[in-house]
């Protein structure tokens, strides 16, 4: 089974640990991620202005090229997923805008490519039962708090990903890979997104609220699906400490790193060194590595 893969701006560089683990795990699970042959940045934000058609050109082009190559388009980044899926729907439903966009990108795209996030592939096409059977390294009920963030879930009528108030797909995934999911109220709240650049004090507070909630509910680690969430709650823990020096700190892992660990991938492939809060002490302590 092959999927067209859209990496996005960050996955080959700063978020290599998300990407590599994702590709390797796919192989183990019997599907392949074939990189889209010609792609550009998706834009990283879905244009909220009704008259901004220009900002729809990048995702439109990505989708049109996916249509040409044929297949289902998938991504590992929640933001890319959100932008591309929303753009896809708009193109499908708004004939006036579709025409303008197609004229500009000089392609003819109708909005009919299927777009899935990697987690959806695991749930729908692979199946969590199959995933469970493929586990080679039992993670021993490691208490992991799944951080959904906002882009996977909202707007729920367009994303059609899971229940926006009480989603369970990420928890089901964690159970399948022998972790113990930790439910915490901030799992659906925003990490601050681009405010880590625009108003870092605000983003720091968001990170603190999310992380302290996870810790308070017994999490040993937090997992994410998005390089922006990862940056905001992993790398920015440094800023969180500066403001709240009683904060204990907690490792943040990409879901593909956990998946790779459970599927028995060699530890070097999981690139734990790239995570700013080193997860290795925790994993060594649990005799997982």
């Amino acid at each position, binding site marked *: 089974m092959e999927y067209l893969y859209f990496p996005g701006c960050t996955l080959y560089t700063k978020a290599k640990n998300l990407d590599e683990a994702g590709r390797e795990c796919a192989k183990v699970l019997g599907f392949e991620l074939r990189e889209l042959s010609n792609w550009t940045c998706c834009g990283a934000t879905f244009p909220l202005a009704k008259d901004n058609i220009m900002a729809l050109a990048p995702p439109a082009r990505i989708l049109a090229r996916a249509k040409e190559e044929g297949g289902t388009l998938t991504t590992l980044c929640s933001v890319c997923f959100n932008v591309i899926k929303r753009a896809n729907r708009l193109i499908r439903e708004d004939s006036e805008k579709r025409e303008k966009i197609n004229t500009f990108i000089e392609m003819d795209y109708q909005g009919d490519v299927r777009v899935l996030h990697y987690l959806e592939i695991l749930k729908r096409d692979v199946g969590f039962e199959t995933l469970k059977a493929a586990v080679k390294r039992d993670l021993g009920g490691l208490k992991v708090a799944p951080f959904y963030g906002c882009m996977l879930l909202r707007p729920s009528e367009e994303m059609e990903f899971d*229940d*926006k*108030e*009480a989603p369970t797909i990420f928890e089901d995934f964690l159970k399948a890979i022998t972790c113990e999911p930790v439910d915490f*109220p901030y799992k659906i709240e925003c990490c601050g997104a681009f405010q880590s650049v625009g108003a870092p004090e605000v983003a720091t507070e968001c990170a603190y609220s999310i992380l302290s909630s996870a810790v*308070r509910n017994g999490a040993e680690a937090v997992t994410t699906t998005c390089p922006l969430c990862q940056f905001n709650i992993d790398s920015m823990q440094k800023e969180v400490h500066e403001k709240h020096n009683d904060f204990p700190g907690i490792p943040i892992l990409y879901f593909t790193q956990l998946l790779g660990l459970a599927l028995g991938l060699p530890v070097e492939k999981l690139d734990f060194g790239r995570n700013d809060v080193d997860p290795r002490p925790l994993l060594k302590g649990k005799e997982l590595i």
Partner: protein
Amino acid sequence: MGRVGVVLCSCDLEGAPLFDPDVLTEKLKRRNDVLPLVYRSPACSESGVEAIRAFVEESDLDRIVVTCSRPELFGPTCMKVLRQSGHNTAFSEVIDIRPALASVEKGGLKEAAEHVLDLVERKIDEIRGRVPSRKEKIPFTKRVMVIGAGITGITASIDLGNAGYEVLLVDRLPSIGGRMLQLSETFPTLDCAQCTLTPKTVETGQHPQIRLITYSEIESVSGEVGNILVKIRRKAAYVDWEKCTGCGLCQEKCPSKVPSEFERGVGLGKAIYTLSPQAVPNKPVINREVCRFFTKGKCRVCEKVCPVGAIDYEQEDTFIEERVGAIIVATGFDLYPKEEIGEYGYGDVPDVIDGLAFERLNSASGPTAGEIRRPSDGHIPKEMVFIQCVASRDPERYMPYCSRACCMYTAKHARLYKHKVHDGRAYIFYMDIRSMGKGYEEFIQQGVEEEGILYLRGRVSRLFRDNDHVVVWGVDTLTGKKVEIAADMVVLATAMIPSRGVKELAEKLGIKTDEYGFLTEAHWKLYPVESGVEGIYLAGCAQGPKDIADTVAQGNAAASKVQALFAQYRNSS
């Protein structure tokens, strides 16, 4: 057959005529089987009605068509006048010209007249084709069925019973009293609800004209006013009510502890139960879905202890058929399930309850003997949050309408809480306060000034469990600030919705419901308790959310409508 008289009223109640009647007279005059009359002022006036009567009498017409923009309001009066002059109204009609005007632009009087002419000519032809029917005497049964034995149904039943009519009072619960049975105290007087209700339920149970048919559902309905045949399914109670003396031993000895719908999730019940110690009728039923005998084949304690051998596990549903002349539908309400509200926890947070559950906690006969205690650990809550407009006034996600009674009962809940927990603080999140009854506004203000209830104007976006608190994220729009409260307990004033199964019942009765399931009244303003189907009346929350005073008034109104109906048929039984 003589000519058909056509009364052309172009109506100008809204300041201008709706069509040009001269266009019609022009065309109708060419037919020699039609005699037109133009009445240039609204015919629905004393002089108008006189003119119509004179027209009929002087021209000796036996068939009439009258054009009208509100036939449902003027029609009956016009027909009555014609009948009084000895006219047989089976051959006449007041027709609705609104459909003819729908596609015409305002002011297009000539165009409108063409459309009305079309309608009138079709009606003339139809009326000319009517044949006199055989006069038949059909039996008119002067008995009434009241569906729903809450305070509304009880009120209507007592009125009709007192007027001398036989009343069949049907309810799906084992005993009568409806929602009021679950209440502790009522606003604005804070009278004990059971003290108000019990005398009425006893009066109903003792009334010689009222027959109680409880633990039953309507199976099918056929016939028409005066001659309605209703088939009723009496559900198996697994207790022989003829033998049962109401001693209560079975309930006392039943070993089960099961979730009770009556207790709204804050208390447990038994598998064999009556709804209250003063139940009318005071006979229990067994819920086979939770009874140990029915589910596991064990126990049978009730059978063993019953002194009169009234337990009968073999009992089956039975059916009865009753013939009545009129029906009053008073099926009451339910509350929007909190289990469907995601941002408030999908019903998984134990200390988040709805208004009826609070009533159970506050009731002396309730699961906590009237003490306000948290369902999770039984502690007394000190930080008590009440949220109004839950699933109401929410066109995007839930019900768009206002549920009318919640502002008052929430204030009541907060006041009752403060009466019991003096060192607690009550917070009420609201958008507006609708206190439109006698003494209601004063009641609200008293709660604020005397009990120190803090009203926070704003909605609650989300609440969640955090250790042993419920964190509430709301807003106080009056200061503009986002507000966070670590509440001990939260009471949701959820939207009032029609009782389960009302749409199906309405279909059986042939009456209309709106998109939410509330029964549709015949006219928004003037016929609030009529269904549009002769002989079937509506009353209470089944017609729309309201408080007890208004439901009782509608119960009285529906009863009076039935009496007026029955009075028209003097020579029947």
